[in-house]
């Protein structure tokens, strides 16, 4: 296919603004799927994605649309819908020449729309503004139009109005994709250069690599090289992506498709990497590749100790399909063997946990998440601490630095005060306030990541009655006054409960953790002391009074089996708990640190 008849594009939108529904309409309009088939939201292939209403992985689909007697190939490249995956978003965007900016007429522009729009602009994408849900009674088409014009500097006439639900305006939108968005440019005869914008592990085929060809062509049988690993493979199959694989002899520049080349795990086909020929390949890769950098760390342990071997196997399998997950073995005095894992963000952590449970039937316990701290010791040695357990003794520390995020919060003006108060509590540093219109404002704060990962988003939703939207990217490391707080149960330090937090919050948090623990740990035959301590100094304590009553008053001949069952039930409950010293601690106690109110 000649480049002039190809369009590579994506849809940039906030969650719930109708991206998936619009994609479904496109597929119907171009006869990829039959009209009215309830394939609803074909691109979201993981159960989890559909449940969470977000796209975790990106996908691509090839459509053919006839415009004025000419067939055009439209490659719709989907992007992940969560800030945890902003790097993956940027690579998907880099594979396109244009983007549809989709805004819900009843909701208006939100933080995520803005951040993805900026990403798209950074990647020199042509923007096609579209207002969705025009069929809704509460749609504010005019207001949304004004906002879009202000942000993009476009005219109201440039904006296309659709209802993805009813299909109104969808054909006109496909026409506009052809007329408004540029065709790819490249030299089909040049040395091949292809960008990996996604890869996933298929049980039967191995790793499927999704690529956009920028220069030259790749053919079945070609010996290829991946830049970041310098590993070489032979293309076994190459083709277009529809709902099914459509094998071809080659992909030429401007096209998007898939490659299968006997690659064993997705970490070997990293998003953002460049593919060229093994012999006589290009010298310089496409720009923008980055190693995944975990920003949230947490330790995971099997809830049933005997599942450890199973966890070792499952996490390795998960890794086949998740290049961003990093992990190493860890052993905890309290929880036994497990893994210290690095995640892109909290959502990524949640996804890994859920997948282990659903796909591998492995319930796990994740400890209080932490962020990487950069520590310089008095000796001059520099450390990155990803686990509170490794936190050095305060007396030998010179400086500690913590990661800060650049954040944008878009909120109706009524809630500015609440949001500012929250941001201040979380040690936010205000950069600027920008009025989007007379009703909404964008607040820009630098916030410590450690303050974000604990329920910041939930709190933000609460103080703004659900109206605030939030987005963030990594900014820099800054000096921080943080301390490690240990939790002691009857004098015994519980390694898996230690956490690092800002000095000024240590007391409240510590107190709250010991109180939560005192509610979660059942009464024992003896008194239990719960303490929070910094170094050797106890900063907060709670106690659990001893059990007073657990007796079967009547126990005669007929009751022996009944009593035995009672004791067995008691033991069954104990099995699910962890033994710390002589105290039996239920799994949920380990989540207390997370759940404890920190304010």
């Amino acid at each position: 296919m000649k480049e002039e008849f190809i369009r590579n594009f994506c849809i940039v939108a906030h969650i719930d603004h109708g991206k998936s529904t619009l994609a479904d309409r496109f597929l119907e309009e171009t006869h990829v799927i039959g009209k009215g088939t309830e394939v609803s939201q074909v691109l979201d292939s993981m159960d989890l994605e559909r449940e969470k209403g977000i796209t975790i992985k990106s996908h691509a689909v090839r459509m053919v649309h006839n415009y004025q007697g000419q067939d055009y190939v439209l490659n719709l490249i989907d992007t992940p819908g969560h800030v945890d995956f902003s790097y993956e978003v940027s690579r998907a965007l880099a594979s396109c020449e244009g983007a549809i900016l989709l805004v819900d007429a009843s909701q208006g522009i939100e933080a995520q729309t803005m951040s993805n729009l900026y990403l798209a602009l950074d990647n020199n994408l042509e923007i096609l503004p579209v207002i969705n849900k025009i069929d809704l009674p509460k749609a504010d088409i005019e207001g949304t139009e004004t906002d879009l014009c202000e942000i993009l500097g476009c005219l109201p006439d440039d904006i296309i109005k659709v209802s993805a639900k009813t299909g109104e305006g969808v054909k006109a939108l496909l026409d506009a994709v052809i007329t408004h968005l540029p065709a790819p440019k490249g030299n089909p005869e040049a040395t091949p250069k292809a960008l990996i914008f996604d890869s996933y592990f298929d049980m039967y085929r191995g790793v499927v690599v999704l690529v956009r060809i920028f220069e030259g062509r790749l053919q079945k049988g070609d010996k290829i090289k991946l830049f970041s690993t310098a590993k070489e493979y032979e293309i076994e199959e190459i083709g277009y992506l529809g709902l099914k694989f459509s094998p071809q002899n080659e992909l030429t520049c401007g096209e998007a498709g898939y490659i299968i080349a006997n690659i064993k795990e997705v970490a070997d086909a990293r998003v953002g990497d460049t593919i060229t020929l093994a012999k006589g390949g290009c010298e310089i890769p496409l720009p923008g590749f980055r190693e995944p950098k975990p920003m949230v760390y947490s330790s995971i342990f099997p809830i049933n100790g005997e599942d450890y071997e199973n966890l070792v196997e499952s996490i390795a399998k998960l890794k086949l399909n998740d290049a961003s997950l990093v992990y190493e073995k860890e052993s905890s005095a309290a929880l036994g063997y497990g893994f210290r894992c690095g995640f892109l963000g909290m959502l990524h952590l949640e996804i890994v946990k859920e997948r282990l449970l659903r796909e591998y039937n492995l319930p796990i316990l994740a400890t209080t998440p932490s962020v990487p701290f950069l520590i310089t010791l008095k000796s001059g040695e520099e450390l990155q601490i990803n686990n509170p357990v490794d936190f050095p003794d305060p007396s030998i520390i010179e400086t500690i630095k913590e990661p800060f995020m650049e954040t944008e919060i878009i909120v109706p003006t009524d809630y500015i005060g609440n949001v500012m108060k929250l941001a201040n509590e979380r040690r936010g540093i205000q950069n600027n306030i920008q009025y989007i219109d007379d009703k909404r404002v964008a607040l820009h704060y630098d916030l410590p990541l450690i303050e974000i990962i604990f329920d910041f988003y939930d709190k933000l939703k609460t103080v703004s009655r659900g109206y605030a939207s939030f987005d963030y990217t990594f900014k820099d490391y800054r000096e921080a006054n943080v301390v490690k707080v240990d939790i002691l149960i009857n004098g015994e330090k519980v390694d898996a409960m230690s956490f690092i937090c800002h000095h000024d919050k240590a007391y409240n948090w510590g107190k709250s953790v010991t109180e939560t623990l005192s509610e979660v740990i059942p009464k024992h035959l003896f008194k239990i002391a719960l303490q929070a301590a910094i170094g050797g100094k106890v900063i907060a304590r709670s106690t659990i009074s001893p059990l007073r009553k657990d007796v079967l008053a009547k126990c005669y001949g007929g009751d022996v089996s009944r009593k035995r069952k009672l004791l067995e039930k008691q033991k069954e409950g104990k099995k699910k708990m962890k033994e710390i010293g002589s105290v039996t601690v239920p799994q949920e106690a380990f989540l207390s640190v997370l759940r404890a109110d920190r304010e």
Partner: protein
Amino acid sequence: MEQDFQASQLGLYIHIPFCLTKCGYCSFFTLPFRQSSLYEYVGYIEKEKVLYRYQLKRPLATIYFGGGTPSLLSAEQIMAILEGLNILPDAEITLEINPLQITEQYLKALKTTPVNRLSIGMQSMNNSELAWLNRHHNMEQIIDKIALCRKENFNNISLDLIYGLPNSSVQTVQQTVDAYLKLQPEHISCYLLTLDEDCPLADEIDKLPNEDILAEQYEYLCSYLKQAGYTHYEISNFAIPGFESKHNLRYWKSEDYLALGVSASGWIYPMRYQNPVDINAYYENVKNRVIFPQKEELSNQRIIQDYLMMGLRLREGINLQEFNERFQIPLMEIYREQINKLIKIKMLTLQEGNLALTEQALFVSNRVIGDLIL
């Protein structure tokens, strides 16, 4: 071996499920009383007795009529059930009796049977408590009834007492105990009120006192009865020395007992069995000459666990030497670690070769015993 078996003593439990009314706190299997039903039932007990004739060659040291309301049995029916049994001359034969059924006539009739111990379900000496429990007697009646028993020469009387009722306190418990002591019973069983989800008073569960108050009442009962000359020999049982319940001791010491009647369960080493809880299924079983229904042969480990579970209910606890002779393995060899842990936190004591619960362990004994054996 045969000789040994023939000589080894046995206990016998006979279950009579019928009641005139259902008590509010009762979640046991009971049936409404009809004279004809009881007549039919006794017939089945007699048939069942014949099925176990081999076991029943053993000398009976104790017999216990429990229920339900076994005092619905006439003296003739009791005699019919006991007929032909190999009862030791000093056997303890107990009948649970409802206070309202204590009449001069009935007591006189009972005197013609070998029944020599009465266990009276009086529960309280507080009329409002009795009403709440749906018991139909009152404390004034009780005083007369006990006097009647004494007059008819029943010299081994046990009284049930229920504590832990809504609005109860150490003071109300003391009032009840004082009233009990005036009756000079040989034996008192003190039961903590427990309301199961399927008993008539289940809705009142929320009104029960908290565990601190209950523990206080229990501790008070223990010390007050001890002061009055009673031996606290089992978690819930108190006796004038020499009047401990021999039959119940068999349960706590894991000695053999046979059980007859619907829903009754027995223990003939190394096997437990239980009759069906459904009356018609029970009758079917007897007709079909089924013996030891739902029998379960216990592993040695299980027997040891049950032995400890029951034996530790006794204040004297487990005699280590007896244990060793019985199981051919020292107790400390099996449970050393757990025992030491529990001794350390003062839940168990090891004194004069006996392992026992401490005073403070009694009211949390489920937890202590569970920690020990499981």
